[in-house]
């Protein structure tokens, strides 16, 4: 693991209790680290655990097992003042900019609150800083936008406000959970580019959560693929889309628009078993290359080449 990691999760497990049913593990012993100024994309289908993972990293959730290290400090179980301070350091951008802004408050108010609460600025200084933030996300003239209410903004503009709000605490890490999937195509590119330029300016680290491999390839340095609560493959973005190793990544790529093939390499569709009693590889029931061993043992992440890990027994047997 890299030494300059801003955030590092070690063997993170997050359990959700269900009434009259066995608990599920939304994240099962996942390790992930993000370096300084690095963007890691977490790609997977609904229910794969990618959002839960993101929320645990910014400590909106408390992990059931495992450790989260932020700049060398253990933040797994912090609470109260220390947690509040951590929230200024690790921010979240949500998917739906129509739901994440309060319709009764102006843009200016949305930005003043974190400046005062997280950064401890006085009301007067906070107000001055607001226009600074709006300038950074391209909402000018800033005086006009400060007074606007969310309903007066387009989806793209709202997402810019959400980004400005995330920046207000002066964070080192931003978890962006599907920040463009609700936006129109012509506006998505602008938001992605804005995220990039802000990263360069502020030296931020990003966890970019998405179901879209193409945008992950665009924004991220490394891509981690999640399936059934586990990371099944991780590599640099270019390697992952061009020479994937894990059978699930193959399936995901084949299903993505712009891939070379139409045929889907799967035997059946269906959601993975998330209960704790699951044994074996989460993808085994759908995998066209499944072996007996996959149904009883869980394959560990192994290095298939430098900076490229994949969790599949095929890598140990020979050809993928």
């Amino acid at each position, binding site marked *: 693991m890299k030494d300059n990691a801003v955030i590092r999760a070690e063997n993170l497990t997050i359990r959700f209790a269900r009434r009259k049913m066995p608990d599920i593990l939304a994240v099962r012993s996942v390790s992930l680290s993000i370096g300084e100024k690095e963007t890691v994309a977490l790609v997977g289908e609904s229910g794969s655990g990618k959002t839960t993972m993101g929320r645990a990293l910014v400590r909106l959730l408390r992990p059931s097992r495992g450790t989260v290290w932020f700049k060398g400090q253990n933040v797994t179980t912090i609470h109260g003042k220390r947690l509040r301070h951590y929230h200024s350091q690790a921010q979240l951008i949500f998917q739906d900019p129509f739901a994440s802004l309060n319709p009764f408050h102006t843009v200016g108010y949305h930005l003043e609150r974190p400046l005062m609460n997280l950064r401890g600025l006085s009301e007067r200084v906070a107000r001055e800083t607001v226009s600074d933030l709006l300038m950074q996300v391209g909402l000018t003239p800033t005086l006009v936008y400060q007074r606007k209410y969310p309903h007066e903004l387009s989806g793209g503009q709202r997402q810019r406000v959400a980004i400005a709000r995330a920046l207000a605490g002066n964070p080192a890490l931003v978890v962006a959970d599907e920040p463009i999937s609700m936006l129109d*195509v012509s*506006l*998505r590119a602008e938001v992605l580019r804005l995220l990039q330029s802000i990263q360069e300016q502020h030296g931020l680290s990003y966890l970019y959560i998405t179901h879209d491999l193409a*945008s992950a390839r665009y924004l991220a340095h490394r891509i981690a693929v999640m399936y059934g609560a586990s990371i099944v493959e991780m590599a640099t973005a270019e390697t992952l889309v061009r020479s994937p190793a894990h059978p699930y990544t193959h399936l995901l790529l*084949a*299903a993505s628009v*712009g891939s070379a093939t139409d045929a889907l390499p799967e035997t059946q569709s269906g959601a993975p078993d998330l209960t704790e009693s699951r044994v074996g590889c989460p993808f085994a029931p759908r995998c066209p290359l499944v072996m007996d061993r996959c149904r009883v043992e869980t394959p560990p992440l192994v290095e298939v080449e430098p900076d490229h890990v994949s969790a599949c027994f095929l890598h140990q047997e020979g050809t993928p």
Partner: protein
Amino acid sequence: MNVAMAVEHLDVAYRTPNGLVSVLRDISLTLYHDEILGVVGESGSGKSTLAQTIMRLFKPDVASITGRVVVGEQDLYTVSPRTLREVRWRDVAMVFQSSMNALNPVISIQAHFTDTLLAHLPHLTAKEIEERTRNLLQQVRLSPAIARNYPHELSGGMRQRVVIALALALDPEVLIMDEPTTALDVVVQRSILNEIAAIQRQRRLAVLLISHDFSLVSSLAQRIAVMYAGQLMEITEHGMNSDASVAHHPYTEGLIAAIPQLLGNRVRIDGIPGDPPDLAELGTGCPFYDRCPKRLAMCETTPLPPRSTKTFIRCHAMPDIEEGNHEG
């Protein structure tokens, strides 16, 4: 190629407390047998309004509508309510994004098929209905056994497959699909789209496939109509191909440049600056004027040239474009 459905000079304006707001302007397009015609556009471009107008789903007090929608010999806007009821589903069926939530939670999947079939074919026996249901479910790769199940027992992908099977129940000639897979996961989406493509080829259906996802539509459709602010800007046979030899409307070019590629070598993406216009405040000129990199002075006020050929580009800055005038 035979015409399956013709939309002629469709104008739609919603009635709002502040007066009429024009949402579709002079839409003409022809859907042929045995083709998938894609319709792409962003939110507010009018693509879903188009689908609902084609099915004549708006009551007169909601929208003012002029123009014709011709299916077979009949104009859906002049036929009697009884004929309209027969034409819907038998000749033109539809699948919407939220269709899977339209399944009735308190009746079984089988009952949905029974209702649909009996409404149009009252003479079918129980055995025939069961037989047809089994075939339809198999066509969308569902086990016939799920006919006994209730909607909540099925996954989103399975429910959307049921809805597609229902749409095929009366063997329609035209299938209108508005974002049929948008709420689904990537892999499920691709597998359903592969099935739609196979069914279309098998039955030689005419499919109008409406979506916000240009790359997805361009992987399936033979022709793609691009909508912006209630107007058709272009109908192209070139999909997302943006080679120098292929001409596209400046808006279409902007869309293509905005989409990150999965495997291609183009790394740069560029958004289209600005926001879509407010439909209530649109002038007479090209609706893309404010955001267009190729605009001319005349574009602000001169209406876009009318076009009704099989493929076309409506742009004042590109008057010399050869038109694919195969059918006229």
